[in-house]
């Protein structure tokens, strides 16, 4: 499987995004994905990133990035301002994931969310065998210095989307270099979901009149 800036999730998201769309990348790091999307898909992109050194690199790269906390930053954009709002490998680090997802679907037509799957068999085995918090390739941190504050699986995410009445438009699962189609909750290392508010527009999402 192809990588973009050494990341599979970037390659997958890069494929998902339609050309010439408006994109907001939350937790955009050094703006690699935004720069790639601008170059290859001619998107009109914006980013949000907390860490100053990364913001500087992103702006130096030509990306329009705002230095701030993504959880509050998402509140400031107008309704349905973007075609896609991307949250890559960051959902598990946010304090209030549901609030973030709601915000994403308010400011964007679609949310694209990539996260490491805590249900992967390596994680389950590590916990089972060691009896401690898992340390794997996917979750390489000790429990006390991990940026991850929520641990979710493919099943957990699907259940939340269903409960909110939202719609999963696309789901892509990856392990190593391969795409996973069989038992993703056990086999996928990374899950990428494209979600829309769907037909059942949730009352918690306000949408501007056309």
């Amino acid at each position, binding site marked *: 499987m192809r990588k973009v800036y050494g990341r599979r999730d970037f390659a997958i998201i890069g494929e998902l995004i339609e050309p010439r769309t408006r994109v907001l990348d939350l937790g955009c790091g050094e703006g690699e994905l935004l720069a790639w999307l601008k170059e290859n898909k001619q998107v009109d992109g914006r980013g949000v990133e907390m860490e100053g050194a990364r913001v500087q690199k992103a702006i130096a790269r030509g990306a329009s*990035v705002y230095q701030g906390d993504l959880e509050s930053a998402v509140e400031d954009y107008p309704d349905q301002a973007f075609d896609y709002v991307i949250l890559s490998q960051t959902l598990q680090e946010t304090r209030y994931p549901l609030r973030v997802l709601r915000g994403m679907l308010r400011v964007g037509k679609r949310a694209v969310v990539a996260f490491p799957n805590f249900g992967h068999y390596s994680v389950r085995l590590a916990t089972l065998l060691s009896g401690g918090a898992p340390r794997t390739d996917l979750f390489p941190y000790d429990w006390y210095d991990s940026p991850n504050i929520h641990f979710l699986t493919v099943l957990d995410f699907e259940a939340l989307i269903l409960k909110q009445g939202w719609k999963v438009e696309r789901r892509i699962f990856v392990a190593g270099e391969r795409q996973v189609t069989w038992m993703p909750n056990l086999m996928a290392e990374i899950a990428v979901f494209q979600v829309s508010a769907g037909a059942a527009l949730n009352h918690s999402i306000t949408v501007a009149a056309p």
Partner: protein
Amino acid sequence: MVTEVASCSFDRLELDSGVTLAPVEVAYETYGELNAARSNAILIVHAFSGDAHAAGEGGWWSSMIGPGKAFDTDQYFVICSNVLGGCRGTTGPGSINPETGCPWAMSFPQVSIADMVRLQKMLIDHLGIGRLLTVSGGSMGGMQALEWAVTYPERVASAIPIATTARHSAQQIAFNEVGRQAIMADPDWNNGNYYGGRLPGRGLAVARMVGHITYMSDESMREKFGRKLRTPDQFEVESYLKYRGYKFVDRFDANSYIYITRAMDTFDLTQRGALPTLFESNEARFLLISYTSDWLYPPYQSLEIVKALRGRNCDVAYCNLDARYGHDSFLVEVEQQTEVVRGFLASTFREAAAGA
């Protein structure tokens, strides 16, 4: 670096106050060369005590403007003019009133940031430049950059307001008022009529000393001076401030100090509407920069503008750079600033070329 020192004269300038100033002289300098498409022009707008001499030997922003620098004069054509109300070649209170043959002094009409920008726009028209690649400056320069973007959005591809605000706070007005009062309390000020006589140097020097304190940070002052002594009965910091204060008298007009600080204090974009509405469908790109240790123009003032821009989904980049030198950081701690400005300009230039 191809450099040109020039001035030009305009028949008249309508001011916000309703007064017409005629004629008006503008002193400006340019660096680098305008390309055939006239698409590489950058207007640099100076801060309160700056002038048209932005780059080259002794230029106030020579750290940022020049060959290979953030505003790369090998690629871009950089223009900087002295502001209206100034004392470095552009018409101001020290200029001769053609009706009386004497300096205007305090009979000079009150000028605003918008007036300064209107005059700059006349200069840009005069130079035959349709659309600026960017307009950039720090502090009062940032106010002018914002004014440009709000008043002439179709004339700028981008704006880079640095360490600035959409309106002065009570604290900022207060420091300016201390400066003005120091000048007015000097008997040599003589209600502004000192031209040809003794200058109100003591008052102007005190005003500048206060200004310098506000441009630094507690940390940078501790680092630079600490409690070091210059002489047995004088601290290093006292000596430094006095030196800077009296040096200022040689190059700055006390009445310009009064007029320009008033222009800064009365600048308030929000008087024209809520900030987000001012940026409605603004197609320019924006880069705002603030500094962590800047307590005179604190980051929250930049954030207020950035929030308004994001609220209208304008194309805006923002970073709060880690720096120790307080408000002066945009002049002296330019490494990170160079990195972001260079990249932002390059991408803006590419996009403008692709869109043209």
